[in-house]
């Protein structure tokens, strides 16, 4: 032994240390001088409390009680073979030992060893128990059932049941008859023990007799009867234990061993074989080789084989010899050898079975486990607060912005370069111009400003061309919107154009304001406009003071439905808004045309409504080029014409940038192709 580990802290200590140098715990028992592996003199120093059973036995002998015949003399070889095997090899045979006495190997083989243990008597607690049992035995008077008193060796018990009461199970643990062992020289010769047949009947408790008396005849005859005949495997083992056919090879199951054991010899299980109990662990495979042919090979599933713990599992429990076994130092089992020590099992830290399993892990599983581990580590890792990096100026971003700003600002600030107004105009522009030119002037035109303020730069310029033509015709105008921010936009456009054409607010133009409710409100407005919009927006001061609404103005006085308007124009930048008006309002407009003034981005989605066989939209005005052409057709210069030069240079710059980007992409694609 190189070192010993502390049962408390599990740290290594020198082999000769008595206390743990780390935690101070005692490494060896208090009452004994370590494991009884020394000579006989060392065992003689063992205190009498060590073997209380021997003292009990000596006490009964001192009382002069006659021993029953059944327990008179142990016959050599009557002990079960497993008990014979456990005995130390050097111990003398205890053939002449009395039944009830402590066997010689338990009494350390010293002459008078048991007597030497009588000095202090049994422990106090055992004496009290024994006295209580004696009183109970005297009261009951049933000697045959008080088999426990026989075990104690009390005077009231007839048979000594130390060995006589032991009824070996035939075929399992009954020892084979052996020649009588030589008597111990320090003991007088005693009568050879008889087979405790009758005594066993008396000594066996009643419950045990009832359980086994029906099918198991007592005595050695029963064992002889129960032994299976040679050459035929027993269908049912003694005591009704099932015969497991699957684990034992059927060929040699019932055959006698090669050694030719006599009939009645104990057929011990393999695990209780002498080699298993006494021999070292290395001898096990050799001992089991002969049995392997009888055992069906165990086959484990691969997954179970992979999960099998190989490091922590000890396949063989090494049973130490009696001398090597430590003596219990505390508790009711104090003084006994071979007691299972609880402290190491409880206090000693053991390797976790789960953690020490060697699993068959594939490469993919290992990679996934690594990934998971890395993710968990990343979660626990604190992200260092990095200083905010200074914004890096993107060259391409700045180049594009610079080119666009320069191209746009140059005509705005200097007035040059100048682009000629478009000579070509969209095909639908002529029909729209004609449509506006033929509107009845007595009915008002409805303008719907359904765009956000961000699009006012485009849609104000596009819409103003059409609105101005309406004003030129003298058609009353009413505005409304389905967006909360639409009313100010309408007011701004009208306020800029109305003075140019002598339009008086409340007389020729009125703002109805905001219509809430989306598509449902548009349909409701198409059916009953007066119920959808109840008031007005930015009405003249006198009208507000009079409490009149927009419907009371001369513009809307004759309007009760959407078809009462001469024109409905929707100015919008979104396709959804245009679709809502085309879907919900057109069905209730009758002959009133629906015109869309659109942002350039919304035109592709609205044009199908215009070019359909039954058009939902009767006119489209889209984008700054169309507005410029419209103004030119009208013979005036409006916002569209004012923005035309800057728009032209900006479009030219954009086209150059796009062409440069396409060329750069093509070059990169060609170079990559060449590399491949």
């Amino acid at each position, binding site marked *: 032994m190189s070192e010993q580990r502390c049962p408390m802290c599990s740290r290594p200590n020198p082999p000769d240390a008595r206390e743990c140098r780390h935690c101070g715990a005692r490494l060896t028992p208090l009452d004994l001088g370590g494991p009884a592996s020394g000579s006989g003199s060392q065992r003689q120093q063992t205190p009498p409390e060590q073997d209380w059973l021997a003292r009990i036995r000596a006490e009964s002998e001192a009382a002069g009680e006659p021993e029953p015949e059944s327990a008179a003399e142990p016959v050599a070889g009557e002990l079960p073979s497993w008990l014979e095997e456990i005995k130390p090899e050097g111990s003398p045979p205890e053939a002449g030992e009395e039944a009830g006495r402590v066997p010689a190997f338990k009494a350390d083989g010293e002459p008078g060893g048991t007597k030497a243990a009588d000095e202090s008597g049994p422990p106090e607690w055992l004496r009290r128990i024994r006295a209580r049992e004696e009183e109970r035995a005297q009261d009951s008077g049933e000697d045959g059932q008080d088999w426990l008193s026989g075990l104690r060796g009390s005077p009231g018990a007839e048979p000594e049941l130390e060995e006589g009461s032991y009824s070996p199970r035939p075929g399992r643990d009954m020892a084979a008859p052996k020649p009588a062992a030589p008597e111990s020289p320090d003991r007088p010769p005693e009568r050879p023990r008889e087979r405790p047949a009758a005594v066993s009947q008396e000594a066996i408790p009643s419950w045990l007799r009832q359980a086994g008396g029906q099918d198991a005849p007592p005595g050695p005859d029963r064992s002889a009867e129960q032994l299976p005949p040679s050459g035929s495997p027993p269908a049912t083992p003694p005591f009704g234990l099932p015969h497991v056919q699957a684990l034992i090879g059927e060929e040699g199951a019932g055959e006698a061993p090669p050694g030719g054991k006599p009939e009645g010899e104990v057929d011990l299980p393999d695990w209780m074989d002498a080699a298993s109990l006494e021999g070292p662990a290395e001898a096990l495979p050799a001992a089991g080789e002969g049995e392997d042919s009888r055992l069906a090979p165990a086959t484990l599933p691969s997954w179970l084989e992979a999960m099998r713990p190989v490091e922590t599992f000890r396949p063989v429990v090494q049973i130490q010899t009696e001398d090597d076994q430590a003596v219990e130092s505390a508790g009711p089992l104090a003084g006994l050898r071979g007691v299972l020590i609880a402290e190491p099992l409880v206090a000693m830290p053991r390797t976790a079975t789960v953690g020490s399993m060697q699993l068959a892990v594939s490469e993919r599983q290992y990679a996934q486990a690594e990934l998971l581990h890395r993710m968990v580590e990343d979660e626990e890792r604190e992200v260092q607060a990095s200083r905010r990096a200074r914004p890096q100026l993107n060259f391409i971003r700045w180049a594009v912005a610079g080119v666009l700003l320069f191209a746009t600002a140059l005509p705005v600030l200097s007035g040059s370069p100048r682009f000629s107004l478009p000579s070509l105009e969209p*095909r*639908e522009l002529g029909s729209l111009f004609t449509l506006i030119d033929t509107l009845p002037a007595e009915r008002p035109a409805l303008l719907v400003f359904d765009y956000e303020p961000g699009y006012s730069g485009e849609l104000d310029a596009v819409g103003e061309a059409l609105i101005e033509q309406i004003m030129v015709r003298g058609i009353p105008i009413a505005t409304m919107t389905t967006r909360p921010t639409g009313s100010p936009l309408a007011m701004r456009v009208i306020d800029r154009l109305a003075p140019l054409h002598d339009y008086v607010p409340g007389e020729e133009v009125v703002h109805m304001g905001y219509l809430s409710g989306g598509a449902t409100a548009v349909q409701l407005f198409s059916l009953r406009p007066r119920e959808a919009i109840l008031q007005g927006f930015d009405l003249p001061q006198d009208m507000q003071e009079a409490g009149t609404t927009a419907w009371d103005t001369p513009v809307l006085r004759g309007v009760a439905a959407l078809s009462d308007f001469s024109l409905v124009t929707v100015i919008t930048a979104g396709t959804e808004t245009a679709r809502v008006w085309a879907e919900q309002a057109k069905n209730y407009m009758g002959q009133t045309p629906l015109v869309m003034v659109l942002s350039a981005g919304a035109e592709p989605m609205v044009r199908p409504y215009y070019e359909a*066989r039954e058009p939902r939209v009767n006119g489209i005005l889209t984008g700054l080029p169309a507005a410029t052409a419209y103004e030119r057709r009208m013979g005036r210069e409006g916002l569209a014409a004012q923005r035309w030069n800057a728009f032209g240079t900006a479009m030219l710059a954009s086209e150059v940038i796009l062409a440069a980007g396409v060329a750069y992409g093509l070059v990169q694609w060609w170079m990559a192709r060449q590399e491949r």
Partner: protein
Amino acid sequence: MTTPELIASFLGAIITLMVLSYLFADNPLFRLAIHIFIGSASGYAGAIAWHNVLRPGLVDPLFAAGLRGITQPSALVTVVLPWILVLVLLLKLSPRTARYGTLSMALLVGVGAAVAVGGAVSGTLVPQTLASMESLSPASVAPQTGETGLERMINVSLVLLGTITTLLYFRFGQRQSLTGEGETPLAVISGVTIPGPAGLIRAVGKAFIAVTFGVMYAGALSAALVVLVERLQFLRDTLSNLFGALG
């Protein structure tokens, strides 16, 4: 230009420059301008909703009818029922009482969905389906543009081809091979794969979609450039007015 208009123009120019500062990066000036815009727009929308919707549609009728008027049968529908629906809709603000506002919400959603679906079927689905079935006769005349003859034939053919190929492009029912390819290519000529008939049709549909998106992108770019021009003109005019007022 009056002084308030001058101040308003100056503030507008400052906010315009703050928005254009996004060229540098996301910066506090840009975010401040955004916050100002969102806040003012929300406040203005709230005021508009009160003046144009809530007060004339909900409050004024209640005061006009009075306690005696709301008991009339006609007022139950025009005054009392709207108030009940509005109040139970306000119960949606609390999770405990939210379920009581389900009736108003169900009414809004149900009516809105019915209106939208009905309008989509009658205003978009049927007319657009009919629009793809125009006659290929050279004698036919487009109702709006007046095109006829060969131009009309080409235009109608393009509409038909675009409609069919685009619909086939969105056909997801074709079973793919183990290699992930839809079908066996017709030929491979100097590294260029010629798809099969179905792949060819889908490629044409894809081209139509790409052209449509390209046109929409060009329109959006055109609109953005016009807005940029308008802002630069606004800055120029503001500076001109400011310098004129100062000096």
